[in-house]
């Protein structure tokens, strides 16, 4: 994995036509704890695995509100992520000031991607070490995007990044076709199930995960631990629609949720948690 000669500089190509520094930056994203996103016709939900570096500390904040209609979840170097979210907030505020209307999320994503690309083509810079899942609205409805350190961006129905994201992706790949018509509650439940897959052995609780929602007519909000715990509890109860009683602002959805039977998880017993060598990444 250690490619000697051509990986010192981001501006040096390898003979195989690769920029190793950019790939190493994407590796940093893979080492961070998972972030998951999924969307329906009306809402986008972001969920994160919150990992505290020790029992005494709190976990790193990975969900950020960018504007009333846009929010992000990050995986990787959260310090880089904070800088990007400050840039994104500034762009949204400036756009609002000039045009009296919200910046379409797709355009913001491209601006972030172009900013990241600059760092892959300057010898005195390094790529951002953070991957973003950007959830937001524009005139055409809700969208979910991923921003990479490489400067690429992609749109998704559902996606997961970070460590053990493959387990979550497997769950999402099985279920994503039904997401478009899901209600908000169903969508959050799917997100929590996906987080559960990434957590593997650990019990899902409001202490080790975070959820945020944005929707048409509903500003971006990060769920507080009480509401989150209520959603988690409702996963167990499955058959009855507990969700209608959960959120005070919930419009009340009478649909019955099919009980999700989660097997013990695709993973085997966990020894190492797949952490990177430094504690910078979360």
């Amino acid at each position: 994995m250690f490619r000697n000669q051509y990986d010192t500089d981001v501006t040096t190509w390898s003979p195989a036509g690769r920029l190793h520094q950019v790939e190493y930056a994407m590796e940093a994203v893979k080492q961070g704890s998972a972030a998951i996103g999924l969307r329906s016709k009306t809402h986008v939900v972001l969920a994160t695995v919150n990992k505290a570096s020790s029992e005494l500390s709190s976990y790193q904040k990975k969900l950020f509100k960018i504007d009333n209609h846009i929010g992000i979840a990050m995986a990787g170097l959260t310090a880089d992520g904070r800088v990007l979210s400050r840039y994104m907030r500034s762009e949204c505020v400036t756009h609002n000031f000039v045009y009296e209307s919200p910046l379409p999320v797709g355009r913001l994503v491209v601006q972030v991607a172009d900013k990241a690309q600059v760092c892959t083509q300057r010898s005195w810079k390094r790529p951002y070490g953070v991957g973003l899942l950007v959830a937001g609205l524009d005139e055409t409805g809700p969208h979910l995007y991923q921003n990479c350190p490489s400067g690429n961006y992609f749109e998704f129905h559902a996606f997961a990044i970070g460590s053990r994201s493959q387990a979550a992706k497997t769950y999402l790949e099985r279920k994503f076709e039904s997401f478009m018509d899901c209600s908000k509650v169903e969508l959050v439940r799917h997100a929590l199930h996906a987080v559960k897959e990434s957590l593997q052995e650990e019990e899902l609780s409001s202490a080790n995960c975070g959820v945020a929602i944005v929707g048409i007519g509903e500003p971006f909000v990060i769920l507080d631990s009480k509401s989150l715990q209520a959603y988690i509890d409702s996963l167990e109860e499955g058959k009855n629609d507990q969700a209608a009683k959960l959120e005070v602002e919930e419009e009340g959805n009478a649909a019955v949720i099919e009980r999700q039977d989660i097997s013990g998880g695709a993973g085997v017993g966990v020894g190492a948690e797949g952490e990177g060598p430094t504690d910078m990444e979360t």
Partner: protein
Amino acid sequence: MDFSNFQAPGMYPYHASSSSKQAEKSYVDHPIMGPHNSSFTLMPEAPSKHTKYPYVTGTSVLGVKYKDGVLLASDTAASYGSTVRYKSVQRLKAVGKTTALGASGEISDFQAINELLDQLITNDYMWDDGNNLGPVEIHNYLNRLMYGRRNKFDPLWNSLVLGGVKNGQQYLGVVTMIGVHYVDDHVATGFGNHLARPIFRDEWRADMTHEEAVALLEKCMLVLFYRDRSAINKFQIANVTEAGVHISEPYALQTNWSYKAFENPTAGAVGSW
């Protein structure tokens, strides 16, 4: 206050505060030296960025909302001081597919605004992502532009009327040269504020048909032609609906100069001579 009808004082700019010795008229086009030096040089100095007066101006623009959209109206005249110099100037412009812009005041500044808006719309179009700048965004953009220039004491000497339709909603607003901006059901610039808006206040209704709205505008434009010396009998109307913007070919209205009030206009003005 609407300064768009400010008449340019003359061809040779000279400073009001200068003494007769300094006020040597320069018969060339390049700018003369600063006010405290009476000799002129062949070295051109930087252009003045302190706009004092407009030179070629358009008169009123009218705007009304109606049932299916928004109408803007203006004549096609551009005056050079008291001379009606150009008679085929289009003072209405389509901005994208959702908005129409009408301008009174300095025509060159209107042309500069059009250049900027063309770039804005082109950039927006190139995104090709299902989002586009609507009347709200254009109105606010123009406000920021006008106010920004005003703060530099270098205004774009225009009063702008912005009408548009997006997602079924009609929008009609104004931005002035000092950055005052507002929206309303019917608007006007310059003389139109004094002559047309009282008629709008009496006769405008939200559910007017296209024909009724055009008739109302024509009535007001006729009054303006009678009473505003910078106006001519050659008009255009811009119609903005959900389907897009359409600007009519110029046309004239029937006038009647045999009103009794026109016969002896000074009859009521009693004076001592």
